[in-house]
């Protein structure tokens, strides 16, 4: 038996207002809004119409049609849930409906989709996980058992922390260099702690996420029965397909046939008797680790490099990251909830992602997702905001 584990990342960043150097240090008397509510609302509503609502409906129908044999998992970031509450509660309701079927699992992560796991100590990381846990408990009355860090960033230190916090499993990228020729289609155990690691099958995941509508791809067009055949030929316990939820209807438009693909996928998969679907929690209960992985340097699912260079790859990103940590240590001495909240919203990894100067193929992907014309604009805006926040913290 080989299990298919489908998991979707659902996240929206809080995009910033235009903030020039002349704005730094002004308006300290009243509260400054760094975030572009109008733009965030516009984008959220657009994506909700194109992706969240229609895809949730498709999934709900599929779960009902296959009587719970079709199972999926989600991780909803804290900022995404806040957006739902603020702009479109109906989106959150549709996720609740899905969860109520019992065929859907929820995954823990940092509330702000941040890089707090890369800080010198993991206090802030832990706090943000607990914030997320509280939020999920309040909304879904559920305690997730599996953890997924921001963009699947993972190293030994993070694995140990997650074990300490009581999770049963963790998700990361099936990067070749940690597997060393082994298959990603099994569970593994971190070298330093007792935890189960689910590894993303990047080839099969990216077939849907990136290549689905690529004309020049030799397998184009990708159909559900072809894909199910590929899955049926996979060896191992579990095939982990982890993709951005926005793939459906947003990155891959409706016209590409992505929804048709999704609608037919469960039926085609279940035609093969040795295949079934599992949620992440079920995968961890059902299967045993077959080996150890040792990850001293952080990996992630981003870009070709599959490390953290997407967020911390150039001097600008490192300068912003250091400034973030700097502000954090100053905030510790104060107890100002409003500033703390602002600081945390600014930790969302997307702000650093927009400053990435990685060229060529990767750069194209970055340009598509960025609200800025180029990484330098992204840096100046973000850094100016950080400078302003720093001044307010010191005041």
């Amino acid at each position, binding site marked *: 038996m080989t299990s298919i584990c489908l998991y979707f990342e659902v996240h929206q960043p809080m995009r910033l207002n235009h903030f*020039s*150097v*002349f704005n730094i240090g002004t308006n300290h008397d009243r509260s400054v809004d760094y975030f572009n509510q109008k733009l965030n609302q516009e984008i959220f509503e657009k994506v909700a119409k194109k992706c969240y609502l229609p895809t949730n409906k498709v999934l709900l129908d599929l779960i009902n049609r296959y009587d719970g044999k079709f199972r999926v998992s989600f991780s909803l970031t804290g900022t995404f849930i806040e957006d739902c509450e603020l702009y479109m509660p109906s989106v959150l309701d549709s996720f609740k409906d899905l969860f109520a079927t019992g065929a859907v699992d929820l995954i823990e992560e940092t509330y702000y989709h941040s890089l707090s796991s890369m800080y010198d100590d993991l206090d802030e990381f832990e706090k943000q996980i607990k914030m997320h846990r509280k939020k999920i408990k309040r909304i879904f009355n559920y305690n997730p058992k599996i953890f997924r860090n921001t963009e699947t960033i993972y190293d030994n230190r993070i694995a140990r922390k997650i074990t300490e916090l009581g999770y049963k499993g963790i998700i990361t990228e099936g990067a070749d260099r940690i597997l060393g020729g082994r298959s990603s289609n099994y569970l593994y155990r971190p070298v330093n702690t007792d935890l189960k690691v689910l590894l993303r099958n990047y080839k099969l995941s990216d077939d849907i996420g990136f290549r689905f509508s690529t004309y020049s791809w030799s397998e184009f067009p990708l159909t559900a029965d072809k894909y199910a055949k590929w899955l049926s030929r996979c060896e191992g316990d579990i095939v982990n397909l982890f993709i951005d939820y926005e793939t459906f209807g947003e990155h891959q438009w409706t016209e590409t046939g992505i929804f048709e693909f999704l609608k037919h996928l469960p039926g085609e998969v279940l035609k093969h008797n040795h295949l079934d679907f599992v949620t992440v929690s079920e995968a961890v209960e059902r299967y045993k680790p077959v080996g150890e992985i040792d990850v001293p340097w952080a990996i992630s699912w981003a870009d070709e490099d599959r490390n953290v260079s997407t967020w911390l790859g150039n*001097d*600008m990103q490192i*300068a912003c990251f250091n400034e973030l940590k700097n502000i954090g240590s100053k905030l510790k001495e104060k107890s100002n909830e409003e500033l703390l909240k602002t600081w945390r919203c600014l930790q969302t990894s997307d702000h650093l992602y927009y400053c990435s*100067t990685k060229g060529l193929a990767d750069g194209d992907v970055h340009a598509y997702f960025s609200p800025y014309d*180029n990484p*330098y604009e992204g840096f100046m805006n973000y850094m100016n905001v950080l400078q302003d926040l720093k001044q307010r913290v010191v005041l």
Partner: protein
Amino acid sequence: MKFEGKLREVELGLIFYPQMRILNGVMINMKIAMIGWEYPPFKAGGLATHCYGLTRSLSDKNVKVYFFMPKTKHTVNSDRPNLVIKEVGETEIFPYDRPEDKALAGNFFEEVHRYNQLVVAKVKAVAKAEGKFDFIHAHDWLTMEAATILKEDLGIPMVLTIHSTEYDRSGWLDPNQWFIDIERKGMEKADGIIAVSHFTKRVIVEKYGINPEVISVVHNAVYPVPEGKKQKIVLFLGRLTIQKGAEFFLKAARKVLDYEPDVRFVVAGVGDMLPRLIDQAVDLGISNRVIFTGRLTEDEVKHIYGISSVYIMPSVSEPFGITALEAISAGTPTIASKTAGVCETFNNCLKVDFWDSDEMASKIISLLRYESLRRTLTENGKQEIELFTWDNVAGKTIDVYNGMDIARLEKQLKEREKIYKWNQKLASRAYEPTLTLKTKKMRKSKC
């Protein structure tokens, strides 16, 4: 039929080019008569830099280039055996002159015509003495007249490179129709046009009504400038004309100085706006922080690029903007006008609307304050600069020569053959008087 032979063919727009030496679809041993205006060490703009880089790299690619230019005070030397520089005669005019300025006192138009006649005579003489040319290649409006005459008299194709149009030079304010007419006439006659950017190609199509198919875009390149010891200098370098937008530089300087008082602003270059800019600096109360250098030598230019911390190119209309590449090659982060041609192809620079001095000032301050920004821009910029070589430009220019010849001319010849046959038919029916008229009409609609 009254006219026979070549004259007749010219009249019908039917010109064959029997001297082409084509091997596997590509021309070999090309010989070009290039008509330029300025050439280092003297230069007033990107045209000189372009001609310098292009002619040297063309000759390295086995193209024999004869470069025709006015006699100047400086002697101009070629450092390539394949590159011959021919001085034509003296003239007082430069491509950036306006009829209303200079002490030409109303002789501007005559002077332009006189110089063009000199060029025609000189090129013909060289062709006679040293063998035929394969192409005429001219740059910008000033010698378009000569190029057109030579194309028809010598029966060879003509290529034009457009570095700027009258619309650019006037900053799109009150362009002079006389220049526009000259430019349009030249462009209509050209067999191939090279535009230095897509921006310029658009202008040529939309403002001059030229068929986009004959226009190729070849972006400029740069000979890297060495990096110096950086000082807190923000640099403007260019002609002080309405086109280059130095006044926006000064406006931004005013704002920057409120936040970063120890920065110096350098305005390098000369032009008719100089007195006004000096007044402006005084009015803004920043004359103690702004340095006007006047005309700089080539070494001085390199030095100032090298020691500046920020370079600003706030052009109102900039077909390309080689200076941006020069500054970046010298390790100087650059803020360029969004619409500048260079911005369509170069990623690692900052971009602003030229009129938005607030945003410009904000970016200058960011560059001065954030070392990480400076470093990232400099490192990535220098890497990207390596793609912008004159060798590339020469290669693409040769592609234009070749492509123009074989594919396009064949098509053109076929079309003209049709007209020719049609005319012959008419001629045989002895409609001689109306023939010329109709032919002219046809030609107009064809071009």
